[in-house]
């Protein structure tokens, strides 16, 4: 799957092979757990026509919200866009495709994509627009929407610490979608605040096993 130790790269180097049209997952919820440094590198990089899978599109001038404001995104799959005025504007103007996914369903769809499961059966969204166009199964007398797995070409995630084997430790509720996305992309790029030696993160405290991580980048802020 990869090397024993994971390469520590500059943000520019880490994102440079993300091609136009790629599907990327970006960790975070509002201002927490967002890989800000990787996003800045993507803005510099200028890659276009991205499909962006994220909980929310942050703010037009914060985090991955900037990618939308910068015209680099053609489609968003998210649970919330309300704080990014540009996302809302472009969507209302028909210039940006937005697939709204209930937040818990989004988490499970990403997990299913990374866990080799065929889909998610959830009661969330029954009787709403979230049900439209989807298969509904009746199981033991209750109805569940079949939601499909999500995967990405690249996942850009953020943790507090990494060791050289790529083991990640998160802190606070900045954990959110990051550990799920680490399972669900072909290439996983982890931005971390601190790089420690192998053995410094207690095996009991590893939230994302290093075997899932392909590249490590240190946060610039």
């Amino acid at each position, binding site marked *: 799957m990869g090397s024993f130790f994971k390469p520590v790269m500059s943000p520019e180097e880490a994102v440079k092979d993300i091609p136009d049209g790629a599907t990327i997952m970006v960790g975070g919820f509002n201002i927490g757990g967002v890989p800000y440094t990787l996003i800045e590198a993507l803005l510099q990089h200028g890659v276009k026509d991205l499909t962006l899978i994220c909980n929310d599109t942050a703010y037009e001038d914060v985090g991955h919200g900037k990618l939308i404001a910068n015209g680099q995104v053609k489609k968003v799959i998210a649970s919330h866009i309300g704080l990014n005025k540009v996302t809302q504007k472009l969507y209302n103007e028909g210039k940006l495709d937005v697939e709204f996914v209930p937040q818990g369903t989004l988490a499970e769809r990403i997990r299913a994509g990374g866990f080799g499961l065929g889909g998610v059966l959830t009661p969330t969204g029954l*009787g709403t627009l979230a049900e439209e166009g989807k298969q509904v199964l009746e199981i033991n007398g209750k109805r569940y929407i079949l939601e499909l797995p999500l995967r990405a070409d690249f996942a850009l995630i953020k943790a507090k610490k990494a060791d050289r084997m790529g083991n990640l430790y998160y802190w*606070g509720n900045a954990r959110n979608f990051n550990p799920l996305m680490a399972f669900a992309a072909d290439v996983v790029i982890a931005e971390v605040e601190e790089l420690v030696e192998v053995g410094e993160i207690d095996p009991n405290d590893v939230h994302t096993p290093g075997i899932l991580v392909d590249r490590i980048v240190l946060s610039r802020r």
Partner: protein
Amino acid sequence: MLIGISEVEAKVRIAKRIAREFKDGDVVNLGIGIPSLVSDYIPEGVRVIFHTENGMLGAGPKAREDEGTPDIIGAGGVKITVLPGGSFFSSDISFGLIRGGHIDVTVLGALEVDEEGNLANWMIPGKLIPGMGGAMDLVTGARKVFVATLHTVKGRPKIVKRCSLPLTGKRVVNKIFTELAVFEVTPEGLLLKEIAPEVDVSSLKRVTEPDFKIEEPLKIMEV
């Protein structure tokens, strides 16, 4: 306002009233808007455990300006604190708690709420489209769903016969709290449980779209 209090006062009244609904040990998720005020008014001696859907139990008050971190935020993005006995977890676990029925109460705002307990609070097509965030999971999974809303906005009732906006959830609301009244949603429609001291039933009917039954004896809302 119908009763001569400011919008802020009305919101605080709603938050205070809802805050008195909880039992010691209840696990509660608060939405943004009026619901986010509720935590400031929990009565002494009642220890409510607040859940935030981004992955935390034991959410505490707002962080001090110099102490907050983006690593601990509320669902609205405000830097908050964690209380002793709290916990952090990933989003799948957070929504496992919600969908699996492990949250006692969620309090949510409304664009519209109707007599069947339908709730619309995530989009106005072509205009305001924030998205559902965690709200669809919350109304589906929480054991009780409370709606906190001003009774009217620009003179128009928020409690309607049938929601016209896209729904957040179908037949999911248990109670509705406004500055004027407390309603329970029953299989037969709305039941007025409490009325504000400043209004009577007939004036309440004028600002409430659907008919409602009245609990006997009708309680006067503590304000």
